């Protein structure tokens, strides 16, 4: 069975290393914080200007001045610090964040990422994604292996406008875990019950052993 959203998030949480600073993107990546392994202490950055992001507030704790990069209300922790947007992106561009987990529309076999725009249809903007992929040490993508039309999102070359060139290190899809490697995508593991035949059928990118 392919992984569902929560299983993908749980698998992505295995990427977290103790004592690091991490940025989680909007959507499925946000769910990763629900699965941080026991004994692993990470500090979450929110690029609108916060280190040490806490859980959603209770009704009584809601504060309009305290939101994450997805504009959701959140809470602070004992370790929290706040800063302005230039300081926030200095952390990101300066290579101080260890890991960024993001969603994607397309990923190429050379690690190109497209996740911000569909020309003429969807014009929302890149937000902080271009900064994150350019500056963060390790970039992990969580996404479904195929789009709503059933077409693969793992391509030889991206067709949509890029967020960054050769920036992705690893892709966690509903079918498995794939690394950007010499010559193409290296299969790291498959979801339980998913076969290589299914992966081959649903992947345009070159697969390497």
């Amino acid at each position, binding site marked *: 069975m392919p992984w569902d959203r929560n299983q993908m998030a749980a698998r992505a949480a295995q990427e977290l290393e103790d004592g690091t600073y991490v940025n989680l993107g909007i959507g499925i990546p946000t769910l990763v914080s629900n699965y941080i392994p026991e004994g692993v202490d990470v500090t979450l950055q*929110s*690029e*609108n*200007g*916060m280190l040490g992001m806490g*859980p*959603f*507030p*209770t*009704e*009584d704790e*809601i*504060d*309009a*001045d*305290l*939101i*994450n990069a*997805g*504009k*959701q*209300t*959140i809470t*602070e922790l004992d370790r929290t610090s*706040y*800063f*302005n*947007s*230039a300081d*926030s*992106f200095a952390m*990101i*561009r300066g290579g101080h964040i260890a890991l960024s987990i993001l969603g994607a529309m397309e990923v190429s076999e050379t690690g*190109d990422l497209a996740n911000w*725009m569909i020309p*003429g249809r969807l*014009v*929302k*903007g*890149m*937000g*902080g*994604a*271009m*900064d994150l992929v*350019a*500056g963060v040490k390790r970039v992990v993508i969580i996404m479904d292996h195929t789009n709503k039309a059933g077409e693969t999102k793992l391509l030889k070359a991206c067709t949509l*406008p*890029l*967020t*960054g*060139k*050769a920036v992705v290190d690893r892709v966690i899809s509903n079918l498995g875990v794939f690394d950007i490697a010499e010559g193409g995508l290296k299969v790291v593991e498959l979801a339980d019950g998913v076969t290589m035949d299914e992966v081959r059928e649903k992947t345009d990118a070159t697969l390497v052993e």
Partner: protein
Amino acid sequence: MAQKNYSDANSALEGLLFDGMTIAAGGFGLCGIPENLIAAIRDSGVKDLTVYSNNAGVDEFGLGVLLQTKQVKKMVSSYVGENAEFMRQYLSGELELEFNPQGTLAERMRAGGAGIPGFYTKTGVGTLVAEGKEEKDFDGETYIMERGIVADLAIVKAWKSDEHGNLLYRKTARNFNPLAATCGKVTVAEVEEIVPLGSLNPDNIHTPSIYVQRFVQGEHEKRIEQRTIREA
């Protein structure tokens, strides 16, 4: 001491607005936006504005109100996804849009305010953002040049100001506000509370008063975009 404290948002902007001007605005989503100054700009009828702001508000609130009245000619933003009217005007060609990566926009404001006309960044290399921009290699990596922003006017929202215009922001409502404050030829701040001189700790001032030419106290609705809660 020069009088910086104005009684209302309209008078705080008096003499500063003109058609075709550039405005830098603080705020992230609807968090920490200068609600009262935006409303005063709408009421003034000034038009053909170029606005530097991370987001464009929502249809009925924030900078969205200036889009509804078609006072904005061009937006420079990183993300405009919450605004249907924006999308409609952009896709129909009524509104110009320049997407800047969020960190690039923040750094452009910081640089402009610091007298730095341009800087190099890796962000956007190999993407649409790099088109038409100078590229330069440093230590084997390619960077693109981005320009500093100096705006005719900056509008910001702070939590507290003392009577001299030293500003303090609250939690994530800080965001772009301190940067916008530095890059305006004139900066007007709206605050929740004006406190007496000497009551703010000088070690904790976020925006020193030199960046603030005018300020005004206002009421703030502080609308929430995504009300997410957990069970108590």
